[in-house]
């Protein structure tokens, strides 16, 4: 690659830097707000005007992971001295821990459904994209358009039919059902994105592999897949982010065993409607996996987003 653009001047670079940092600050404020709220006490969290400097507490995190019951002074006395630091925190509110909350399970559900559907989407998407890219598929253009057209309405528009279908198939509130649903929604995106990436890989590489004595399938996974890694990584991130954050279907189709974290987190607030720190703590932890996944693949992601933009 070569660029004939002149190097920007110092002033321009400086201005650009200020703008980028300013923009980053603005977008980061809600995120920092959530993270900070997780460490506030319930009173601080709803204080007006908002408190920026506060005494941090882990109460929100403790509340997130536990179920508590209000205890009378007699009961507290009978329970004896608090055994652990988190016992101590809940004692101060006049409550005792009655057991773990369901946040852990819900979080695990999100992991299973999010990564499961992303994986399935990548497997099916890569193979479909390869076929569309390389083979003479009858009605190829129509099929591709049909696949794209499933994206033309908001998925929630078909929520009711899907709900009825899932109920009849016994897929309501199951991991399998949610994995299939998210895979179906994401597949159009992944087929189109991946087809673009695979189109860019010269067919000669596979032909060379065929000549070198490999079968078509071996050529696909030994030569095409490593070349498409960039595209697969960036597509996987897009798919994961969608499945991870999806709320509407999750509310509608899951309530117990397969409920994901997004519909669960708001319920943490409790009947009193005051436990914002616990909600914020739930949201903060929920951010972590996608962040880690994106950071792990960021090299690919950057290359993937600009892929094909520059002629090599």
């Amino acid at each position, binding site marked *: 690659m070569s660029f004939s653009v002149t190097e920007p001047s110092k002033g321009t670079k400086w201005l650009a830097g200020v703008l980028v940092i300013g923009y980053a600050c603005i977008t980061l404020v809600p995120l920092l707000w959530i993270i900070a709220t997780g460490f506030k006490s319930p009173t601080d969290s709803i204080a007006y005007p908002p408190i920026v400097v506060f005494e941090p507490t882990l109460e929100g995190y403790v509340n997130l992971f536990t179920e508590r019951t209000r205890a009378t002074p007699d009961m507290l006395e009978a329970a004896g001295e608090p055994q652990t630091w988190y016992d101590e925190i809940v004692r101060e509110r006049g409550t005792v821990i009655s057991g773990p909350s369901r946040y852990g399970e819900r979080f695990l559900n999100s992991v299973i459904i999010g990564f499961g559907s992303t994986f399935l989407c990548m497997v099916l998407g890569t193979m479909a994209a390869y076929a569309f890219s390389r083979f003479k598929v009858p009605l190829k253009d129509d099929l591709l358009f049909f696949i794209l057209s499933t994206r033309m309405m908001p998925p929630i528009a078909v929520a009711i039919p899907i709900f009825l279908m899932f109920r009849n198939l016994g897929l309501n509130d199951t991991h399998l059902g949610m994995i299939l649903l998210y895979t179906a929604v994401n597949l159009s995106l992944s087929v189109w994105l991946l087809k673009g990436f695979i189109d860019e890989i010269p067919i000669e590489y596979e032909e060379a592999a065929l*000549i070198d004595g*490999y079968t*078509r399938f*071996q050529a696909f996974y030994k030569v095409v897949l490593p070349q498409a890694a960039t595209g697969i990584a960036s597509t996987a991130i897009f798919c994961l982010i969608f499945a991870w954050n999806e709320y509407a279907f999750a509310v509608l189709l899951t309530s117990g065993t397969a409920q994901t974290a997004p519909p669960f987190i708001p319920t943490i607030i409790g009947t009193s409607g005051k436990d914002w720190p616990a909600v914020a703590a739930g949201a903060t932890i929920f951010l972590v996996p996608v962040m880690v996944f994106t950071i792990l693949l960021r090299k690919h992601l950057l290359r993937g987003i600009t892929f094909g933009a520059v002629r090599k």
Partner: protein
Amino acid sequence: MAQIRIENVRKDFGSFNAVKSSTFTIEDGEFFMLLGPSGCGKTTTLRMMAGLELPTSGEIYIDGEEVGMKPASQRDIAFVFQMFALYPHMNVGKNISYPLRSQGMPAAQIKKKVGEIAEILGITDILNKPVGGLSGGDRQRVALGRAIVRDPKAFFMDEPLGALDAEFREHMSEELRALHDRMNATTVYVTHDQLEAMQMGDKIVVMNHGSVEQFGVPQDIYDWPATKFVAQFIGSPSMNFLDFNGMIGNGGDQVCLNDVTLNIPESIEGAKGALSFGVRPEHVKLDDAAPYRGRVKATEYLGTTQIVTLETANGDVKARVASSDKVNVGDQTGLSFDARTITLFNAETGLALRSQANKGVLIHG
């Protein structure tokens, strides 16, 4: 090593006919050139031999075995692509060893073999480098290494020098030819460069519009083109055609152009009507005494020779004469033609008329 035989091979892409019924034979150990302008079907023909395209009809024999419908991986041939197609996610050594690994050869043996090949090609020092940063020449060598490493029955090369710059090309073509002579392997080489084809090939097939125009050794193709297309495509500047209306009888050895009688090789195929008198520039002499007249239109200086363009009653004629000859633009002069080298063409069909001189080499596709 193997003999390759192509029989009535045809290839259609939808309604487009890329290759019309081609037939020719490549002998064992030959360096064989498939020559033609782009879109003539030469690459498609090569790809059918390699198994990257399946023929619509016809047979392809490698070593007497019909392989037309066999996948490429089972034909035991090697292919060098124009853009090299080195696997970008592997280093040089891995690229070269890749065909061996598909055969399940033990690692120690692979290493030895790759070492030998690297030695032959002079790339021992870059075996551990990624292919991304290599120069064009080194990429070419790695691609060749990958091809020769497993001693295939035949090598197929699709314009392997096309991606190199002119200077390096010449050097590489010598290297290629030397490599072929050393391995003595049947090689089929696709090119659109007539010089490359003449330089390197033992035999040449000239293709145009999906059909074989002529098939033979370079000298015969140059001297006795079977069609006007071949005459034009090969040689620079190409053969001169003096179009005239006339006739030639069976056994005749003279034609009459513009009231001037010119000698030609004894004809064995009479014809009448629109004809073309074909003569190579180096067989045109400027001779003031000659009855056939022309006016000098332009001269091009080429070092030891010069190309003189003359305007005649039958169209422009280019002559290759010594640079030392004094030629001035605007001069009237006579032209004489070396009678032994003349080919007559039917101007309508473009086919050469048979004569005693070319009867031995004329094979119309």
